[in-house]
């Protein structure tokens, strides 16, 4: 029984399939960026007609490996074999020639063009006149391959994200793709769309198309993949048959004991969370729902607490955080912040009520061409009267630069001249001039090195003293564990677990989240 005809979904690849050379094999792939060794000799084999999952933490090297497959990054070392024959991949076109197609998380479709133009538009190259009838017929044929029933004249932007993804898969197949790499395909999809996507994937795999699924949803892997390769710190940890493994085992591979021990100083192998304080309730959420991302969130935050909400990008925790800062109101349920109902009445009112906010996207936080001091004082000018006192502003900024150790910072320097971590400190400094009663931070340490992270943790903790509280929202379990006195886990718009007054480990959080 060859894998092309294997009817069992999520069954392990058969011995017959294993005997044939893998459709694509990477051997000993290494890639170094400056001082960072992103990949240190990774092997990856993908058989014909299998759904292969690639697992790893943020920064484990998944993205770099995918870029090597796509020819977007040229490996420093290692071999690229197609059907057992070594090939030279010198750029994206070489990867396309051997049948590798990557469907990135940010889809590469033209939103205002039709499905037909998107699917076969690339084949128009060199034609003087567009033969619309032929274009539609060809597009229809491609869509039939993925059994996608949409009108080829529909504009892409009118389709759901899940359907758009299938349109990209159709385009990939139609242009001769044999190995389709799907980068986090389910993170923006609802349950129904996920089920539909995997049905299509399985059907195509049965016809001999191979899939590499880059994901951190372990449930998707357990239910839908044939094999999984786990990488950690730029190395392959294991390749397993999914039928022979468990979710716990996968988590163990992903997190790794050695890695955990190394990071014990920061993340802690086992963290003891304190009991909840008796402080005033500053945030009360009851059944908060705001589609598309927030479905049912209920919890409260007391003065003196740092509540960490851990979850991936699709968990809805960031959208929830925005509601706390006056950006949007719940459609259902109750959300009370510092005694006021969260009614989406704008950021100014939220700030004046005593809420501070650090957005996850740093580009939305700083005016990079403006001096550091103007960025630092932006949120507090309102309380200082209508006339500016730039001398005073500079002094305040100078003090904060020293206190937060903003490397190379001077008040007049444009914020954009700082490194990412130091830019983030400038954003935090904005809220330290008059600390708000409730501080909401989204991904406060994204892109920062370990030392800077530890400093941010100290700052966040200091913000939750004297009757104040902070909420830290992140997709990095370490930062949540380091900052928080209470940890919540969000998953697909719901709070699925809460930890306080007990020990908790990163593994536990990840198990709850995925």
């Amino acid at each position, binding site marked *: 029984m060859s894998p092309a005809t294997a009817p069992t979904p999520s069954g392990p690849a058969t011995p017959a399939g294993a005997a044939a050379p893998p459709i694509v094999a990477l051997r000993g792939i290494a890639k170094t960026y*400056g001082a*960072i*060794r*992103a990949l240190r000799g990774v092997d990856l084999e993908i058989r014909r007609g299998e759904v292969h999952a690639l697992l790893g933490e943020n*920064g484990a*090297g998944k*993205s*770099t490996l*995918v870029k090597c497959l796509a020819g*977007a990054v040229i490996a420093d070392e290692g071999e690229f074999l197609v059907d057992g024959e070594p090939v030279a991949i010198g750029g994206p076109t070489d990867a396309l020639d051997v049948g590798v197609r990557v469907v*990135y*998380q*940010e889809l590469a479709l033209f939103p205002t063009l039709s499905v037909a133009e998107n699917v076969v538009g690339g084949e128009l190259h060199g034609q003087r006149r567009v033969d619309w009838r032929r274009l539609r017929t060809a597009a229809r044929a491609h869509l039939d391959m993925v059994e996608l029933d949409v009108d080829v004249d529909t504009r892409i932007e009118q389709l759901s994200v899940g359907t758009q993804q299938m349109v990209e898969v159709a385009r990939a197949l139609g242009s001769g793709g044999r190995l389709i790499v799907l980068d986090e395909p389910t993170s923006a999809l609802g349950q129904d769309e996920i089920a539909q996507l995997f049905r299509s994937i399985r059907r195509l795999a049965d016809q001999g198309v191979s899939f590499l699924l880059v994901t951190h949803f372990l449930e998707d892997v357990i239910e839908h993949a044939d094999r999984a390769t786990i990488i950690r*710190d*730029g190395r392959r940890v294991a390749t397993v048959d999914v039928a022979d493994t468990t979710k716990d085992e996968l988590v163990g591979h992903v997190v790794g004991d050695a890695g955990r021990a190394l*990071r014990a100083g*920061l993340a802690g192998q086992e963290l003891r969370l304190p009991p909840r304080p008796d402080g005033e309730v500053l945030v009360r959420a009851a059944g908060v729902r705001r589609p598309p991302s927030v479905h049912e969130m209920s919890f409260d935050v007391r003065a003196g607490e740092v509540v960490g909400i851990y979850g991936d990008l699709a968990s809805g925790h960031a959208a929830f955080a925005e509601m706390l*800062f006056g950006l949007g109101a719940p459609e259902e349920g109750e959300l009370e912040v510092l005694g006021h109902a969260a009614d989406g009445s*704008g*950021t*100014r009112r*939220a*700030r*004046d009520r005593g809420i501070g906010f650090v*957005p996850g996207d740093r*580009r*939305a*936080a*700083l*005016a*990079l*061409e*403006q*001096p550091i001091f*103007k960025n630092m004082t*932006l*949120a507090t*000018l*309102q309380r200082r*009267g*209508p*006339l*500016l006192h*730039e*001398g005073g502003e*500079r*002094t305040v900024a*100078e003090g904060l630069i020293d206190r937060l150790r903003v*490397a190379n910072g*001077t008040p*007049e320097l*444009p914020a954009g*001249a700082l*490194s*990412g971590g130091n830019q983030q400190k400038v954003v935090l400094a*904005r809220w330290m001039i008059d600390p708000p009663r409730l501080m909401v931070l989204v991904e406060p340490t*994204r*892109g920062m*090195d*370990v030392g800077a992270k530890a400093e941010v943790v100290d700052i966040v903790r200091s913000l939750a003293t004297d009757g104040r509280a902070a909420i830290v929202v992140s997709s990095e379990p370490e930062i949540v564990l380091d900052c928080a006195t209470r940890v919540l886990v969000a998953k697909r718009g719901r709070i699925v677990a809460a930890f306080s007054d007990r020990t908790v480990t990163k593994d536990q959080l990840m198990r709850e989240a995925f």
Partner: protein
Amino acid sequence: MSTAAVRTPTAGRRPRADLRRRALEHAPILGPAGALVLMFALFAILAPSSFVSSDNLFNLLAQMAVLAVLATGVTYVLLLGEIDLGFANIAILSGIAATLFFGGKDIDIPFVGQLYMGSGTGDQIVGIATVLVIAAALGWVSGALTAKLGVPSFVGSLGILLLAQGWAFYWSQGENQYTVPSLAKSIGSGYVGPVPRVAISAAVILLLAHLVLSRTRFGRYVYMTGANKDAAELSGIPTKRIVMMVFALAGLLAGIAGLMNIGRLGSAQPDAGTELLLPAIAAVVLGGTSLFGGRGGIGYTVIGLLLYGVIDNGLDQLDIDPYIKPFVRGLLFLTAIALNVLMLRIARRAQAQSLLERSAEPPDPTPAAPSAPAPSTDRQPSATR
């Protein structure tokens, strides 16, 4: 500009580096300033007696005064990263309305009835105030269309242009109006010593606008909203209100400019809007205020106005075919802009170089591109060492 004060604590520590950086920071002004010097020299050579006479130079200032007040509003709007097309016709409408209010005529308001304003001094103040309220309100509508409805400001203010144009045409019945209120004359015509009064009016407004922009919270909010609207919004700045206020201010300034204009000319012409629209925008852009927001200021606009005025007035002093003058003006405009950009590029490079020297740190490891997630470098070092 706003950063010119020298009281920063670092000034004591590294005075020379600080001075150098501050010079670099204001390097963009060198572009238009250099172009201004070159253009001035060009016309001083080509038309030494007529161009460089005090009469002509004061005349140049008077010619530029109305544009200067309009350009002030444009500067505010551009600092927000928006554009306003309505201000010139708001100015024309204001002029027409002021003459009619002062003229003791019945004014027809469609569907409402007749409006009559007396011509006494008290009535005149009421009339002028009404003119300015109308002007500010029209500007505010542009801003509200942009801030509240999300209409691009180009489109919204284009609508205001058409509306104000039609309104002025209807009230004036297409005729020039000559009943100029004495208040408008007092800010638009006459001299103080050798200096045209209209130029003094413009200078006062430019100075006030500069102080508001550089010394008040409102001015800071304008810059920061233009530099990054999201960052301002997420710091609790009511950016929508700022946008509406700036457009209303541009409307108000257009109203004042309209009054100065009829005071200077002695009549209100219903069809003169296009003579003011593009020159005012051109002057601001020549000065180097960015069309994308957050960069520039009144100081830049003053240089731009002078540059535009020198090109415009200088050409009038040359003995060349009058039909080729507009073409030559276009050429000189393009030359000045190209010169600006080149100077700016040199300044930027020097700026970046100086920052590189200062910064021992590696740059932000996360690339700006939002595409495929880059390898996050944050955790690997901990495992390496």
